[in-house]
């Protein structure tokens, strides 16, 4: 688990957000934007390193805080990207910000995906809707170190074509042969040439080697059970499947108690859980 060096020094207040400047904003869909942030303090920025799957607490004083997954790859230095959906107070306030504005971040927090373990294996990534946000970091990471991984399959579903995030990038990737990428939507429009239907339907179209493959899932709460069923049907090992959860959080550091899932806390024990662990967490899936 990686944490910003600053927290390991005694006497640093882990609730204190560090000012970070918004260096770019990209409109993805009507409700989602991609923000690029740069921590202003040189020392903190230099010490900030993270794993794919970890999150930060994004702070806008006067409004509040919200946990947001880091979408960029750990290899990208000096900047982090957050893909944020307008869902309430903090996220709307963030959407109202402009380039150059300052917000606060704390983190990174939580347990990310086990990259060391996954290396040398095939990877099957399944995302639903906004669940692509944390997986995007993983995808970019794999892309940056492509030779370290075997076959990479990405299944990504959204409600309609307008809600497909990072489409500009995925459209390019569809033609690459080192990634198998399948997009699907529940409700297509005239321009849609990819798949139609739930993301689980895509499992018919792929072939994986269950003994060599790591799975990673992130999406709306209802999605997990069905996707896991498909993975099990493909005979993947339960302890090679990883799921990333969303829960309410007020601190990000295992104190406020809101993110409890079974006997664990999503913020420090997750948000990425091994499915074997998750199976043993009451109320998790």
């Amino acid at each position, binding site marked *: 688990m990686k944490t910003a060096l600053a*927290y390991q020094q*005694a*006497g640093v*207040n*882990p*609730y*204190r*957000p560090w*000012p970070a400047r918004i260096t770019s904003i990209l409109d993805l869909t009507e409700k989602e934007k991609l923000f690029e942030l740069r921590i202003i303090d040189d020392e903190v920025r230099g010490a900030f390193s993270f794993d794919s799957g970890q999150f930060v607490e994004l*702070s*806008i*004083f*006067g*409004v*509040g*805080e919200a946990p947001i997954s880091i979408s960029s790859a750990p290899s990208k230095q000096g900047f982090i990207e957050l893909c944020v*959906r307008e*869902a*309430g107070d903090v*996220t709307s306030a963030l959407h109202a910000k402009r380039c150059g504005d*300052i*917000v*606060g971040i704390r983190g990174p927090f939580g347990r990310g995906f086990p990259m060391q373990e996954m290396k040398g294996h095939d990877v099957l990534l399944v995302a639903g809707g906004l669940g692509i946000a944390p997986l995007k970091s993983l995808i970019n990471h794999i892309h940056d170190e492509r030779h370290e991984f075997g076959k990479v399959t990405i299944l990504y579903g959204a409600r309609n074509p307008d809600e497909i995030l990072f489409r500009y990038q995925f459209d390019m990737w569809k033609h690459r042969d080192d990634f198998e990428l399948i997009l699907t939507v529940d409700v297509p429009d005239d321009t849609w040439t990819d798949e139609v239907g739930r993301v689980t339907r895509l499992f018919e179209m792929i072939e994986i080697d269950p003994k060599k493959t790591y799975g990673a899932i992130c999406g*709306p*709460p209802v999605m997990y059970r069905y996707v896991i069923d498909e993975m099990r049907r493909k005979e993947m090992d339960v302890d090679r499947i990883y799921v990333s959860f*969303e*829960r*309410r959080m*007020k*601190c990000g*550091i*295992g*104190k*406020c*108690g*809101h993110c*409890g*899932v*079974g*006997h*664990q806390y999503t913020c*420090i024990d997750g948000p990425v859980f091994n499915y074997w662990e998750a199976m043993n967490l*009451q*109320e998790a899936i």
Partner: protein
Amino acid sequence: MFFRIMDRSRMPDLVRGLAAEYEVIGPIAKDGKFVFGKVEDPSDLRLDYDTTLLPPKKLFFPPEEQMMRFRVADNEVVDDEVYAAPRVVFGLHSCDINGLLLMDNVFMRDYEDPYYRARRESTLLVGVSCTSSETCFCNAWGTDEVHWGFDIFLTDLGDRYFVSVQSVKGAELLDRHVESREITSEDTEEFQSVTAAFKDSFSETLDTSQLPLLLDAKFNSPMWDELGDRCLSCGACSMVCPTCYCFDVVDRLAPDQKSGARERRWDSCQFGEFAAVAHGQNFRESRASRVKYRYYHKQWGYLSKFERVLCVGCGRCQRACLAGISPREVVKALETGGVQ
């Protein structure tokens, strides 16, 4: 640890001595009950108290507290200092000292909580032995004893106190402010018999051996629905609990809207929105699931991390709950499968 004997009549000396150097907080009377409050005079101190309305956690983790002050324009923290006056909390029972130790695990380990720590470090703890009451069941968890975490502990031997001294500060204070003597073998024997009598005084002993397992095995038991139907979702249980630590965080802007304070306040997993997230999803929508979670977390979640149950058997929640829901009842129901 070393031990001394202090004559009962010396108690006011000790309190006055402490008051000369520290703010002294201890059990005082309020409306026929007791609260931890400022002890202005040794006679205010009510060491005969059964339990206090709120546990001492309020002194370290207050119901509402400012975490930091900020400026809106540049999103900067302008102040996150905690001022903690040196003080002594006098007269803690072993359950409450144990409660603090359990809170320490949360607030003083990974990602130390600076607010809690500042207050904790500026405070000396003086424990005092107690007698069991109807609602206590500390004997179920072994929290009727406390072996560390205090500076001084006084065991009442009638005409005198058996004083266990654990910290250097405690030793110095005792030395400076009160006359005491070495213990004799008689004192030790009496200490042992008083302690044994205390242990025998509990009206029942709960069987807690299989709790985590039972909690999982009976996760879908109808007993939770019955409890859920009774629960008022008032959160009283969490407020009065010495080991409940959940909080909510809110930003409050000053009237000019240019600056403000980030504040936290006690929260309860019994409240409907505790586990609600965006897009209408609520992971614990039903009252039953919330009542269940409180016990699940206390007796399994916390245990899985710290090898202790997050309850010290003080019985405060049972006293506070108008619906009469209590850990004792829940533990028994898990054993027998039904709610009375």
